[in-house]
């Protein structure tokens, strides 16, 4: 069995793990000292680039490359954003870091600030994590007290601030430009790109945004070097990943593993196998927005190449497992309700399309489905794909298309029988 690694999770479960003294006691902030005292911003950026750190928020864009898009020099006002909105259904890994090891995130943010010569970072945390917001704010206060934030950090001449801001319940505010509008005290509606955040971000100032887990990797890369980092996991996505596994498994939770672990191993070894000892039916491998897999497709590595070979994506690495007690139409209905509810409404294909998808899937599940509904779902979803301002439209369309393609017979049976064929099956519960 692939061994669980304790890199990002090294401090989870340790006493007082959120306190700066405990963090420093195990080498914390040494990477920051190294870059501030010994490395130029360019060297720092190049090390992260060489490590090929892929963004952990969903899209997997290389972090170092993204940093390099910002205008250079400290004369140019620039901001960073840390995306702690964590709202993708099935995703709960950032919470683990925020609540257990806020300083590892903060250290990564400050190093990124040095590499890009930014003025400060907005830490945008979802409103439903009040405890996490308090923990992170406390960590920020401690870092100011130790001189890791503020003016002339550790005598380096570098100034950097961190501002904690809370969301207020809107999935769409996890999308980077909606998040920026939210930070400006507005409704969170995605902006048309270009301009990209690197040129026009928060308040119109050039901005770089990364996910919590992305920043948390940075101190490890600085401490151990890009060569060490790229030797872990798959070459296409080096390092470990915080895989969150939920649904019908015996041991749901977050597992830190090299990116090349197989989905089968993750489900049957690490997560203890299927709840109720029933057959596996389906897995969504990367948060609710990615295409679903059937039980016979889990012998793949959990990296971009492996998942691409079965037509899906790593996304946010949130693995949702379903056993054979689940009706796939009902499962899709749940997701379609989510996307229809969370669509911000500015693009017609998304606003109307997500609503129609919910309606069609609902009528199938409730017994009023028509034989043509499978094709109708594919048609409506196909008309959303690629025709919207932000990727939420695609995020709703991809599950719809894949559920129908992978489980078409079950969808057709609903229409044929005029009812849910699984209505008498009791779904396995965890409690």
């Amino acid at each position, binding site marked *: 069995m692939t061994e669980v690694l304790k890199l990002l999770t090294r401090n989870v479960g340790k006493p007082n793990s959120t306190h700066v003294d405990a963090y420093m006691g195990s080498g914390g902030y040494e990477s920051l000292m190294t870059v501030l005292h010994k490395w130029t911003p360019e060297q720092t950026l190049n090390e992260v680039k060489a490590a090929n750190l892929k963004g952990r928020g969903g899209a997997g864009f290389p972090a170092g490359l993204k940093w390099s898009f910002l205008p250079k020099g400290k004369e140019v006002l620039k901001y960073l954003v840390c995306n702690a909105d*964590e*709202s*993708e*259904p*099935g*995703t*709960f890994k*950032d*919470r683990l870091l925020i609540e257990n090891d806020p300083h590892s995130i903060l250290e990564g943010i400050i190093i990124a600030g040095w590499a890009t010569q930014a003025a*400060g970072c*907005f830490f945008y945390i*979802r*409103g*439903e*994590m*009040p*405890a996490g917001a308090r923990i992170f704010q406390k960590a920020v206060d401690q870092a100011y007290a130790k001189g890791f934030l503020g003016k002339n950090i550790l005598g380096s001449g570098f100034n950097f601030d961190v*501002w904690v*801001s*809370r*969301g*207020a*319940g*809107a*999935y769409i505010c996890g999308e980077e430009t909606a998040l920026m509008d*939210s*930070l*400006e*005290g*507005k*409704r*969170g509606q995605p902006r048309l790109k270009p301009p990209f955040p690197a040129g026009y971000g928060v*308040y119109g100032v050039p901005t770089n945004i990364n996910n919590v887990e992305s920043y948390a990797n940075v101190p490890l890369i600085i401490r151990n070097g890009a060569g060490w980092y790229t030797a872990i996991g798959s070459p296409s996505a080096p390092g470990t990943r915080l895989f*969150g*596994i*939920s*649904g*019908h498994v015996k041991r*749901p*939770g*977050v597992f830190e593993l090299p990116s090349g672990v197989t989905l089968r191993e993750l489900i049957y070894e690490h997560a203890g196998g299927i709840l109720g000892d029933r057959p596996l039916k389906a897995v*969504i491998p990367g948060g*609710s927005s990615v295409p679903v897999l059937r039980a016979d497709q889990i012998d793949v590595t959990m990296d971009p190449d492996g998942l691409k070979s079965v037509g899906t994506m790593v996304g946010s690495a*949130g693995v*949702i*497992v*379903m056993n054979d007690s*689940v009706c796939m139409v009902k*499962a899709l209905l*749940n*997701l379609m309700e*989510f996307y229809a*509810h*969370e669509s911000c409404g500015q693009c017609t294909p998304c606003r109307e399309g997500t609503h129609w998808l919910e309606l069609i899937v609902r009528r199938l599940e409730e017994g009023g489905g028509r034989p043509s509904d499978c094709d109708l779902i594919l048609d409506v979803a196909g008309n959303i794909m690629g025709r919207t301002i932000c990727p939420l439209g695609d995020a709703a369309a991809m599950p719809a298309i894949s559920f129908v393609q992978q489980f078409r017979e079950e969808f057709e049976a609903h229409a044929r029988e005029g009812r849910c064929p699984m209505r008498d099956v009791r*779904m*396995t*519960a*965890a*409690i």
Partner: protein
Amino acid sequence: MSEQGVAELIKNPGFLAKVDRLVKSYPRPQTALIPILHLCQAELRHVPVEFQAFIAERLGLTPAHVRGVVTFYEMFSEEPHGRYLLQVCKTLPCMLTGSEALLEHLQNKLGIKPGGTTQDGRFSLITVECLACCDGGPSLMVNEALHKRVSTGDADRILSELE
């Protein structure tokens, strides 16, 4: 009652000091809008239009802008909810682990539907989207406290421990 609450709140020196501190703590004052709305929601259990007008003036925004923001975000409401806001996560991972039974139990126990408030004003029940603790499904948030793996028995116990 709510009007009186607002009138008092926007004259309360302690509250105003908190508002000022938030306005000053960000590079630009408008970033403080959502954090300030959170303060009001926590104090009054809603964000009444009187407060919207007050904060709009304070931050140099229009009341319509503030109202647009209040109505956009799920955590702000224009009507007060009960002393305890019961938030049942209904998204897929929690549905797979038992959220439907939990929601049904709470509905029957309290005699209200999602969106409703008990007559005595103690409990409001709502459904919410994924709370980022899917490994603890079914999850239930009561005001700011997150409860994991909540069976119907657990729910009874949690409610009985609230005054």
